[in-house]
């Protein structure tokens, strides 16, 4: 049997060796008279045909083979080792099948802090496909899929300031209450550490739909308690990289009323093992921003989420542009804090930065009772199986702030178990969401049952005061002057979900 040990090797090296690996795996002997290996140097996958090696090439004191002393008795792999082995084996399989091809001119991967933004070279695509590609009809997945913009205070920087990170969240239908948003903990977490070591403190989370409309401001209701290092795939993070968000503010009554109409269902049978998957033929776009996207089975039910990828970065290539950044700029953002809005507008001015990249990704299933409870789902109605049998999964998200949906190939790995880490999460209470109305100084509230209250006046905030506040906000460099939700929202052009 031939096996590849790819640790740390570049995609170019692995691809260069792929043909050789395939030939050896097929039992082909690479021997004379082929021009490369000469007589006496035959290499074959069949040990019986091998030249006799030095019988004791690695001997230590007393003639004991060194490697035996080093290896010691066999011990079960840790979850991290099992996960690394799964990645290696899946990557090797992709190489053997010829699915991975190094780009002629490798490009830098884009995303938060990872390199320059490539120029957009083609016409924008529609956001998501036309709604017929996915497993559910009538755009239900598209309506449930939200781009999350999490803004963080960066107190460690000299200037101080705000940083924004983008990911994907999915509205999950609750059994009992307000629909909630599932995402990855490294997208929205009380504290993060960026790739340069700067600590980040969560400031706010905004959710946008596929047309760039601000849907809601969200608050964490199931949060990771640790400080997650961005860009680092730790050995165990995939086990606990989950978060749940609840709406705390809606920018308009339309968005509030549509909220309970959004959402997708959790599959009643969840995997007991970590999910591994990759784009068919290396043609999918799995890169930064897809984090937190839901994974759907062919029936359109959620079976997990995307939390980490191992990418062949040398195979990255620019992807066609989508209209998402422009849509964000055209939308009404008055419900965002001034500084957050300015940050979004600055980021969105950059060209779309999507890339295709060959990768293998992984994520947890949704079997944790604590997580299910936080989603408002009765854990008792969710059962588990060792591994999902389906070879096909579907996902929709916002890689590089572009809206994409894709089918992915699932490789069941029952040897990489998923285990709940309830000690790494905490439930947080969030206030009933406030709804920004068109009447100056009036708001509505949405109860935990999703019912919207009658408008109520708040704080004597009339149009004059509101206008003065907005004017002051526009001219002021300082932030957090006031709560912009306490005034009217000119949301006439907004529509509910499709």
């Amino acid at each position, binding site marked *: 049997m031939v096996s590849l040990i790819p*640790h*740390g090797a570049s995609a170019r090296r692995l691809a*260069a060796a792929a043909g050789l690996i395939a030939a050896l795996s097929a039992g082909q002997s690479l021997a004379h008279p082929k021009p*490369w290996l000469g007589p006496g140097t035959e290499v074959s996958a069949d040990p019986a045909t091998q030249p006799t090696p030095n019988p004791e090439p690695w001997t230590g004191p007393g003639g004991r083979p060194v490697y035996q002393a*080093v290896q010691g008795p066999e011990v079960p792999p840790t979850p991290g080792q099992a996960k690394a082995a799964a990645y290696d084996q899946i990557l090797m399989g992709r190489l053997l099948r010829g699915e991975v091809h190094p780009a002629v001119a490798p490009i830098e991967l884009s995303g938060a802090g990872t390199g320059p933004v490539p120029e957009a070279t083609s016409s924008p695509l529609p956001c998501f496909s036309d709604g017929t590609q996915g497993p559910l009809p009538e755009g239900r997945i598209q309506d449930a899929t939200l781009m999350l913009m999490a803004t963080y205070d960066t107190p460690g920087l000299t200037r101080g300031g705000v940083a924004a990170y983008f990911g994907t969240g999915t509205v999950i239908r609750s059994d009992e209450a307000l629909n909630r948003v599932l995402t990855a903990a490294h997208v929205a977490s009380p504290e993060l550490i960026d790739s340069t070591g700067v600590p980040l403190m969560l400031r706010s989370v905004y959710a946008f739909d596929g047309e760039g409309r601000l849907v809601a401001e969200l608050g964490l209701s199931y949060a990771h308690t640790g400080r997650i290092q961005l860009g680092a795939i730790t050995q165990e993070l995939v086990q606990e990289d989950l978060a749940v968000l609840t709406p705390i503010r809606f920018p308009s009554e339309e968005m509030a009323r549509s909220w309970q109409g959004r959402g997708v269902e959790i599959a009643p049978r969840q995997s007991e093992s970590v999910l591994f998957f990759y784009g068919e033929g290396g043609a999918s776009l799995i890169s930064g921003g897809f984090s937190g996207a839901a994974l759907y089975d062919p029936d359109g039910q959620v079976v997990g989420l995307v939390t980490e990828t191992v990418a062949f970065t040398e195979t990255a290539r620019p992807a066609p542009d989508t209209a998402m950044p422009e849509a964000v700029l055209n939308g009404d953002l008055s419900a965002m804090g001034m500084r957050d809005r300015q940050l979004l507008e600055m980021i969105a001015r950059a060209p779309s930065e999507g890339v295709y990249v060959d990768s293998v990704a992984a994520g947890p299933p949704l079997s944790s009772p604590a997580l299910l409870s936080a989603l408002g789902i009765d854990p008792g109605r969710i059962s588990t199986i060792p591994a999902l049998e389906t070879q096909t999964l579907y996902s929709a998200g916002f890689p590089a702030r572009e809206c994409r949906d894709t089918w992915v190939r699932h490789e069941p790995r029952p040897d990489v178990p998923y285990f709940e880490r309830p000690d790494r999460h905490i439930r947080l209470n969030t206030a009933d969401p406030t709804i920004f109305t068109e009447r100056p100084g009036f708001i509505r509230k949405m109860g935990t049952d999703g019912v919207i209250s009658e408008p109520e006046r708040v704080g004597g905030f009339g149009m004059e005061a509101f206008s003065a506040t907005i004017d002051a906000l526009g001219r002021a460099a300082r932030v957090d002057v006031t709560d912009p939700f306490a005034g009217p929202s000119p949301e006439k052009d907004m529509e509910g979900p499709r």
Partner: protein
Amino acid sequence: MSREIGPLPLIETGAVTLIPLLTGELAAGGPRTGRVSRDRTGLRVTIPTATLLFDLRSERALRAAPRLLLVEAEGDQARLLGDLTLTWDL
């Protein structure tokens, strides 16, 4: 001057372990002896004219390899560059 090559993958066939190099990275020659050292980033195998780099996770496979062959991989063929014997100073 010693060139650094890698990190390198390994191909285990059972009886031999191949170290695939890109074309032109190393000249064909006779058996080589490499001295292995370890630093924070990985394993460094010093041979004449070059230093071969391996991920730390490759140590077990390198130690267990009954025979190491340096090869150039091209398509489905391999050109033998020579045997490699390691000495461990770890």
